[in-house]
């Protein structure tokens, strides 16, 4: 702790931090109590997010979940390390918002930020798994997320005797399920 920080104002320090990649920020969190609380504050997170908005990468979920540069040849940029790799993700990606990947497994819905290796889940009610659900993931700002779950309505299930398949009408008004994270 004998490293004396140059006399930079906190705001100037945060300005410098806001240009750094996510992994570097996570490392700087151990610098001091003050830095940790500043770097995890919503103020800094949105400041950092505004700086990094122009960097776009193509996310490809396959056997290796990878980021590719959005150029002519899709150059490999980075392989993402997911926390809890022992879990079977099922690999159904519902959507990506603000660097958060929303995935559906057979038991729950996972929200993963691979840059800070953070993951949390939203348990599903598995009371009627014979129905087909459609999900959507969208944000209402950096700290407010919605998962929309649309239940297929049993009354509109249509049984096709030839193919033995169920066809469902997605009901727009009923049974929609909205979860808000703040």
């Amino acid at each position, binding site marked *: 702790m004998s490293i004396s920080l140059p006399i930079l104002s906190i705001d100037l320090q945060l300005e410098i931090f806001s240009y750094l990649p996510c992994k570097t920020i996570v490392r700087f969190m151990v610098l001091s109590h003050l830095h*940790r609380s500043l*770097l995890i504050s919503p103020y800094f997170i949105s400041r950092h997010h505004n700086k990094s908005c122009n960097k776009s990468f*193509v996310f490809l979920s396959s*056997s290796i979940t990878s980021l590719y540069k959005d150029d002519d*040849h899709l150059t490999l940029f980075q392989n993402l390390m997911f926390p809890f790799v022992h879990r079977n993700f099922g690999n159904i990606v519902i959507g990506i918002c*603000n660097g958060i990947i929303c995935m559906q497994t057979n038991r729950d819905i996972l929200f993963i*930020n691979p840059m800070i290796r953070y993951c949390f889940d939203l348990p599903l009610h598995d009371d009627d798994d014979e129905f087909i659900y459609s999900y959507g993931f969208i944000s209402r700002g950096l700290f407010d997320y919605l998962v929309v779950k649309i239940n297929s309505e049993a009354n509109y299930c249509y049984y*096709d005797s030839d193919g033995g*398949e169920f066809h469902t009408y997605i009901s727009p008004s009923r049974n929609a399920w909205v979860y808000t994270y703040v």
Partner: protein
Amino acid sequence: MVYNGLLHWGAKKWVEDRWYYFILTFDPQSEVFGEILLADSFQALYHPVNDKNGVFVVQNSTKPLTVYSLIFLDEGYRTASVWVMDRYGITESWNQIFTFNCTNNYISSTLFGFNPDIHMHVGFPPLLLFHRSDGTLLFEVEFNGQSSLRCLDISHGTFTILTHNIRRRSKDLYIGYYYPSLVFLTKFLPLVSVMLYIYIYSFMT
């Protein structure tokens, strides 16, 4: 699929005597659902055979709302078309920009004609995954049991292979734009012990 600040799904509904495709929307601000109608020529579905037919809203960022329709006609004949909605919300502005015609043995297209390069045996058309900001379309093409990612550039008339052997763990391959962020860092706790150590250290010096 998020577009224009709204969620979009390809959906179908049973009206009178047949199925109709439409796009279901959800506005997160007002929490209201809505519907976008498709062009007349591809909204009616007479005979839904399986889930591989349908209308899919395609991931994109800045391009017009893009829809990929897979329509089974008969005797293994299918069409797979890319539609864009040039003016959002205006049903008349739907524009078909590309079509594959598929039988059990070959694929032809409006752009290339018969293309022996994507000849295949499974009778299933390429799957449109992504409409990139430069206007090119990314397709997953299955050939001889192997999947490759191909980039279709309509203006230059090319259909180039980007990646071979996309081996998938599950049936769904997802491509989307990703921006690294620190969201959820506020919930990030595992550094407590390190902090405690630093705290004690500074106390002693």
